[in-house]
C-alpha cells in the first residue's frame, strides 16, 4: 500500500471517529444560540431602559422596580397563585381518584381511559372556546339551570372580575386532570401485587390499603405530576387568551399574558423582558431541584 493511500485511510478513520461529534455539534450550537443566547439577551435587556426599541445601555434594576410597581403585574401574580393552587390541587385530587377507581379491574377500562384523556389532545384554544360558550352568562349554564326550574340561578363568573379567574381553573382542570389520571394509573400498575396482598392479609380494608400503603409508594408520581402541573400553570397563556382574553379589564391576566401584552402590544421591551425573566426564575425554582435529583438518580 502506498504512503498516500495509508494516509488517506487514516484520515477517513479519524473522520469516522469524529463523525458523531460533527453531527451533534451544529445541533448543540443551535441550542446554545436559541436557548442560552436568547435567555442571555432577554436577561440583558431586562437590565436596560429599552422601550419600543431595545437599548443596550445598562440601567440597573429600574425595569424590575417598574414591574413590581405595576398593579397589573401584581394582579397577574395573584391570579397565578390562585390558579396554580387550585389547578394543581383539583387536577391531583381528580386524577388520583380516577386512577384508583380505574384500577379496580374494570372491563371497559380502555374505553373509559380514552374518554378521560382526550382533552389532552386538544389545543387550549379549543378548550377555551368551548368553555367560553358553556359558561356564557346569558345562554350557557345559566339558561340551562333556568330551564330546569332554578329561575334565580345566576352564573356570571366569566364577566365578573372577581370570579373570572375561577373559570380559567374550571377549564384548565377539565383539560389536564386526565393526564394526572394516566400518570397515576401507570404508577399504580407498577406497584407490586404482593404488597397489596400483604396489606389485605393484615386486615386492611381497600381504603386503608390505598391511603397508608399504596399512595405513599407513589410519592415520585406525586412529585412529577406536581412539576408538570406547576410548569403548565406558570406557562398558561392560550387558555386565558381564548377564555377571557385576560379580562374583564386585566382581571384574569397571568404572567404569560402580561409578558405578551407588554412585548407585542405595548412595546415596552424592558418591562416585558423583566417579566419573562421572573417567569424563568419561577420555573427554575421548581424544576432545578427536581432535575438535579432525577439526574443524580439516573447516574447511579
Amino acid at each position, binding site marked *: 500500500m502506498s504512503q498516500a493511500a495509508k494516509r488517506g485511510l487514516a484520515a477517513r478513520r479519524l473522520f469516522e471517529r469524529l463523525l458523531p461529534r460533527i453531527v451533534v455539534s451544529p445541533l448543540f450550537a*443551535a441550542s446554545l444560540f436559541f436557548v442560552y443566547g436568547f435567555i442571555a439577551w432577554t436577561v440583558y435587556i431586562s437590565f436596560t431602559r429599552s422601550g419600543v426599541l431595545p437599548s443596550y445601555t445598562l440601567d440597573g434594576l429600574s425595569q424590575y422596580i417598574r414591574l413590581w410597581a405595576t398593579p397589573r403585574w401584581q394582579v397577574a401574580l395573584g391570579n397565578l397563585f390562585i390558579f396554580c393552587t387550585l389547578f394543581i390541587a383539583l387536577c391531583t385530587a381528580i386524577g388520583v381518584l380516577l386512577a384508583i377507581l380505574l384500577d379496580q379491574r374494570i372491563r371497559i377500562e380502555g374505553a373509559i381511559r380514552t374518554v378521560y384523556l382526550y382533552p389532552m*389532545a386538544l389545543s387550549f384554544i*379549543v378548550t377555551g372556546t368551548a368553555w367560553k360558550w358553556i359558561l356564557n352568562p346569558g345562554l350557557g349554564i345559566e339558561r340551562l339551570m333556568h330551564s330546569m326550574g332554578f329561575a334565580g340561578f345566576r352564573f356570571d363568573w366569566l364577566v365578573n372580575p372577581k370570579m373570572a379567574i375561577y373559570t380559567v381553573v374550571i377549564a384548565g382542570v377539565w383539560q389536564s386532570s386526565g393526564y394526572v389520571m394516566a400518570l397515576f394509573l401507570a404508577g399504580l400498575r407498577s406497584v407490586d401485587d404482593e404488597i397489596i396482598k400483604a396489606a389485605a392479609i393484615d386486615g386492611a380494608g381497600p381504603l386503608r390499603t390505598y391511603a397508608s400503603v399504596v399512595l405513599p409508594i407513589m410519592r415520585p408520581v406525586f412529585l412529577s405530576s406536581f412539576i408538570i402541573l406547576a410548569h403548565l400553570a*406558570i406557562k398558561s*397563556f392560550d387558555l386565558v387568551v381564548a377564555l377571557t382574553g385576560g379580562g374583564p379589564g386585566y382581571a384574569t391576566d397571568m404572567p404569560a399574558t402580561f409578558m405578551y401584552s407588554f412585548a407585542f402590544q405595548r412595546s415596552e421591551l424592558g418591562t416585558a423582558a423583566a417579566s419573562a425573566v421572573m417567569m424563568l426564575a419561577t420555573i427554575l425554582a421548581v424544576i432545578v431541584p427536581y432535575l438535579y435529583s432525577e439526574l443524580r438518580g439516573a447516574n447511579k
Partner: protein
Amino acid sequence: MTQTAPAGIVRRKGLRHRLMRILLFAVLGVFCLYYLLPLFIMMATSLKSLDEIRTGTLVSLPRQITFDAWLKAWGSACVGVRCDGLKPYIWNSVLMVVPAVAISTALGAVNGYALTKWRFPGANTIFALMLFGAFIPFQVVLLPMARTLGVLGLAGSVSGLILVHTVYGLAFTTLFFRNFFMGVSDGIVQAAKIDGAGFFGIFSQIVLPMALPAIVVTVIWQFTQIWNDFLFGVAFTVGDSNPVTVALNNVVNTSTGVKEYNVDMAAAIITALPTLLVYVLAGKYFVRGLAAGAVKG
C-alpha cells in the same frame, strides 16, 4: 333475623360488594359525562341554527340539523378582515406542521443515536444542556426570536414558524430518542462497528428500523404540540400566515356583528379534528408520549 351467621356474612359481603361496584361505575360514569359533555355541547351547538341556540339550552339536541355553521366556519367566516373561513389557515398549519415534525424528529433521532451509541467525552453534559431547552417558559425567548426572524427575513412567515418549532422541538425529540436508545443494547452496534459499518450505515440499517415505536411516539407528540401551539403562532405571524389556532381565536373573539356561537363551535371542532383523530387512531402512542414527556409537561 333468623339467618345463620356465616351465610349472612357472605351474603352481606356479596351485597356490599355489589353496591360498591354500582357506586364505582356511577362515579366513573359521572366523570365520563364531565369529560364528554363539552364535546357534546360543541357538536350540538354547531348543528343548530342561531334561532334555535337562542331558544334552546346548551344540552338540547338540534331540532333541525343544519350544516350551515360548518360550511361557514370552513369557507366564509371572517377572520379579521378576510372572510375565507378557516380553510387557508388549516393549510398554513399543515404547511407548518409537516416539515417541522419531520425535521425535528429526524434531527432528534440522529442526535439521540450519536449521544448514546457513540458516546464521546462530554456527551452527557451536552445532552443535559440541550434538555434544559425543554423546560424554559418560551416567553423568555420570544423577544430575541422575533428580532432574529426579522434579521433572517422570516418574520411573519410560515417558514419562520417551521424554524421556531424545529429549534424548540429538538430538546424533546432528542430526549425521546435518547431514552429509547438507552434501552437498546450496545452489543448489536458494537458488532456492526467491528464489521466495519460506519456511523450512518449503522443508523440507517440497524438502529432506525428498531426505533419505529420511538419514531411514532415522537411524531405524534410533535404533531400534537405544534398543531396546538398558539404562543409562537400569535407572536411570529400576521394575518395571512396565521396557523389555525390563531385564526380560531380571531373568529371567536371578533367583536363585530352578531355573535355566531354555532360557527365558533364548528370552527373549534374543525381545529381540533386532526389531533383528535391522531388520538383516537394512535391513543396508545399518544399516552406513551405523555409519559415520556412527563419530565416536561
